[in-house]
């Protein structure tokens, strides 16, 4: 309870300081949203010409796109502390974190909260809503629960990626950019059905970096495409838990990394 209250207090302070520059905040919000609107607009353009993609219609792809967009936007919003951890280590701020009587993971997590990602979030969420209205999905309690768990788990997956990037900073701050392939690149590739990718590529993004579990497998289930996809239905039920597992493993990695922290300028 103490931690939750503390976290909310941190978030409150962060939001207030970001709102201090209101004009630039609003501007940023719109530019965020406009970038992602254009992203999806381009997908729509391609469907206008080609009609379908590996058996998926525009709004089915829109559903995929919306799901991963929501997860990534929320992860960027709340997992910002890990995303910018590189700067924090270089400034020596991690020393300060270590002298406080709180867990390091909790402190880095609560360090930042990027409110302006609301722009990206709402754009992805609106596309998800439109896709839903265009697709006539037969919703049930199981499906709604499944969707919610998938979204939370997908957010955990992206936070896990940020944690890996942050942990690598304990050894070298220069290699962190490689994680962009999985975060920004992952969001991009996750916007398309996995069946278009080559076998090795698919396997890598299912079993090693479980990106497919964020939106592809859940969408197969929710859009009732499991049978036609050739994916085992057992796997589809397990998929929404991959993100939680992934995050748990990265937390262990983080703990191990903290022990190797060398600080700066001894």
């Amino acid at each position, binding site marked *: 309870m103490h931690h939750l209250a503390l976290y909310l207090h941190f978030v409150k302070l962060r939001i207030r300081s970001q709102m201090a520059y209101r004009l630039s905040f609003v501007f940023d919000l719109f530019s965020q949203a406009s970038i992602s609107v*254009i992203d999806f607009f381009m997908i729509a353009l*391609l469907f206008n010409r080609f009609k379908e993609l590996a058996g998926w219609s525009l709004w089915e792809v829109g559903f995929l796109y919306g799901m991963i967009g929501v997860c990534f936007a929320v992860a960027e919003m709340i997992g910002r502390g890990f995303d910018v951890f590189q700067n924090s280590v270089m400034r020596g701020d991690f020393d300060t974190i270590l002298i406080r009587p709180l867990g390091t993971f909790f402190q880095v997590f609560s360090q930042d909260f990027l409110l302006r990602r609301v722009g990206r979030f709402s754009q992805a969420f609106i596309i998800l809503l439109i896709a839903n209205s265009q697709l006539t999905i037969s919703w049930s309690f199981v499906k709604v629960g499944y969707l919610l768990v998938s979204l939370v788990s997908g957010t955990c997956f992206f936070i896990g990626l940020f944690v890996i990037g942050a942990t690598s900073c304990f050894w*070298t701050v220069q290699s962190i950019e490689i994680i962009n392939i999985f975060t920004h690149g992952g969001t991009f590739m996750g916007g398309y059905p996995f069946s278009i*990718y080559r076998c090795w590529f698919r396997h890598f993004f299912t079993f090693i970096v479980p990106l497919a579990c964020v939106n592809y497998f859940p969408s197969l289930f929710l859009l009732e495409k499991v049978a036609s996809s050739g994916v085992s239905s057992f796997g589809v039920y397990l998929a929404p838990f991959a993100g939680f597992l992934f995050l748990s493993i990265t937390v262990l990695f983080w703990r191990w990394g903290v022990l190797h922290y060398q600080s700066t300028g001894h």
Partner: protein
Amino acid sequence: MRPLYLTFHVYLAFVRKSFQKRMQYRVANLAGLATNFFFLLVHIFVYTAFYAASTEPQPLNLNEIITYFVLCQVSFMLMPFWGARSEVTQAIKDGSVALQLTKPVDFHTYWFADEYGRACYFLFMRGLPTFLISILFFDVTFPQHPTVLMAFALSMTLAIFMSTAITITIFSSAFWTLDTSGVSGMSGSVIMLFSGMLVPIALWPEWLAHIAEWLPFAGLIDVPFSIYLGKITGVGVWTAISKQMMWTLVFIGLGRFLLNRGFSRIVIQGG
């Protein structure tokens, strides 16, 4: 005023310095290279799947599409939205740019040289390796005739000039607003769309392609690559290149105008 050819070497030195400055971030560059390839790979998967499902003839065949996106990744870092990280933008934000007025160099040309050096760095250290490795893995097509290659080289050079001129125009906004991320984000998304970086303009519906034709941004990506692919030929090449030239001059003029306004603002405020 000294003749241009005498001062030219000074600005060339700025270009060189800007290039060398970036040489120290090689590991980051390798990560960037890997990112380029990842995006390229996904693009190729997506278009292969689209083309597989379509029987109608398309304005660009699959090999041409692949070549187009290889070239896109080659020039990705040359696009105007990266200027936010430049030292000049920082100097404008913190006001230390006023010191530049004391130096006997033209500020716009100095900034131009700095950005141009950055573009050259990314062309050679990021773009060229991307291209060479792509040849090994993907079906990249080559121009059929040496004159096409020459026209492409000319158009590409103009594209880099134009990109540099646009960068300065966008980021001179730092004189008026402390936070350039909004301005650069907005303009960035417009540029990304209308340059043809996301989807080749040839694949667009006609009404949208028409808008793109009246905007300058196709000159950054779509025009040079269409020349490379032989989609623009004959007189069309010269029309396209003179359009690029015209827009470059427009942006240089606009950039100079904005910088003058910006500096006079600083002087009046006594900053």
